[in-house]
């Protein structure tokens, strides 16, 4: 296997930057794609999850279909659908940079999983909370806003944490449409330098660091929003 050659990172890529600089910008793209997709997933997933718990058969059915649709097609294929099919169908989307298509693909894919958690969180609350809200004269949206959701979201912070870590890992699939994120960098730099082991080790390390950082952040958040009076809650 030969000796280590970490100096490969100081080599010039031919484009006026070193491989180290390229890798750092690739890391930035990975984090950007993951965080934007997470935002999409949380917003869309929450809405779909809420729809699945409302007393309206049509909306529930829409929510269920959404989840089945985005859960039963591989992420790679979904990304290609956004990349090949959507811009052909809607010509106005042709000008959109491909990073946005990947953000929406990854975000919608993850929204199905978030919706599952949101639904589970709402259903974990005693039924009486919903009735109490309605009995006090709150409208249904008000009941969700002031009674159900503040509890439900705090219950599901731990599973959402693992979804956030998954989204960092899943963002690697963006290599397929040539977003220059970490995995794409790893593939190209490996080919150009033939120092695959060093490059893969560095990239794998950066994935570890990113997932770990999200994990710590979520733990901090979890402690801040704990529900007082529950087993985890204290105070």
């Amino acid at each position, binding site marked *: 296997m030969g000796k280590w050659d970490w100096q490969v990172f100081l080599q010039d890529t031919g484009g006026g930057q070193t491989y180290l600089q390229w890798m750092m910008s690739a890391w930035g793209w990975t984090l950007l794609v993951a965080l934007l997709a997470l935002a999409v997933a949380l917003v869309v997933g929450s809405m779909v999850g809420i729809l699945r718990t409302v007393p309206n058969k049509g909306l529930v059915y829409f929510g269920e279909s959404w989840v089945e649709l985005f859960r039963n097609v*591989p992420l790679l*294929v979904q990304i290609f659908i956004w990349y090949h099919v959507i811009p*052909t169908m809607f010509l106005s989307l042709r000008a959109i940079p491909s990073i946005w298509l990947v953000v929406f693909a990854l975000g919608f894919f993850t929204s199905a999983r978030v919706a599952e958690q949101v639904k589970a969180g709402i259903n974990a609350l005693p039924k009486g909370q919903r009735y109490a809200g309605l009995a006090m004269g709150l409208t249904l949206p008000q009941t969700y806003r002031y009674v159900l959701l503040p509890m439900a979201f705090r219950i599901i912070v731990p599973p959402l944490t693992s979804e956030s870590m998954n989204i960092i890992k899943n963002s690697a699939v963006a290599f*397929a449409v040539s977003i220059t994120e970490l*995995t794409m960098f790893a593939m190209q730099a*490996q080919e150009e330098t033939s120092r695959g*082991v060093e490059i893969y080790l560095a990239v*794998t390390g950066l*994935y*570890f660091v990113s997932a770990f950082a999200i994990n710590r952040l979520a733990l901090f958040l979890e402690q801040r929003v704990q529900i007082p009076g529950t087993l985890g809650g204290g105070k």
Partner: protein
Amino acid sequence: MNLNLDFTFLTWGVISAFVIKGLIFSVQLTIIAMIGGIALGTLIALMRLSGKRWLILPAAFYVNTLRSIPLVMVILWFFLLIPLLIGRPLGTELSAIITFTVFEAAYYSEIMRAGIQSVARGQVYAGYAVGMTYRQTMQLIVLPQAFRNMLPVLLTQTIILFQDTSLVYAIGAYDLYKGFEVAGKNFNRPVETTIAAAVVYFVICFSLSMLVRRLQKKIAIIR
């Protein structure tokens, strides 16, 4: 909205020439990685529950490492490392089979660990009380129950595995998606073949998950 789709070129002849070969590989990869992954995963789960530090630490390291790396990177790692270790190149197909078995074992082992822990402690004591060895107790009493309790979860993981096999795209193996992609390139109809691929994946995965749901209900009644 500009819908100008033409699926007529996707005749049985085209499908059997391009797609079937890929479908067979995807299914093959899924089944081998499932059987190998569950076997290896059960072994790792038993290591983690053995109570012996020198077994627990490597098993935990294995599971935690693989679970925190993107699957695409794992595929690339194996494709790079296996030829370096054995000294000759290995085909993409064989490389994918080894990668998925090793990778899925980490996920299956977590399921089997939960399954083993779900078996009542009294069952183990009963096994020992009638004079069984550790091996016999595990093999004849604990594992069959753990396996049965976890069957729906194991199958759900297998559906995820089937979807994940599409990621062999990274090393260019010829799987179900690749089959559609090649057909699309040949007939210059990439939009139609992408849609067709999505539909085929959806139909397979959705019907399998419906079956798992029915199985789950059946098992739930007996318990």
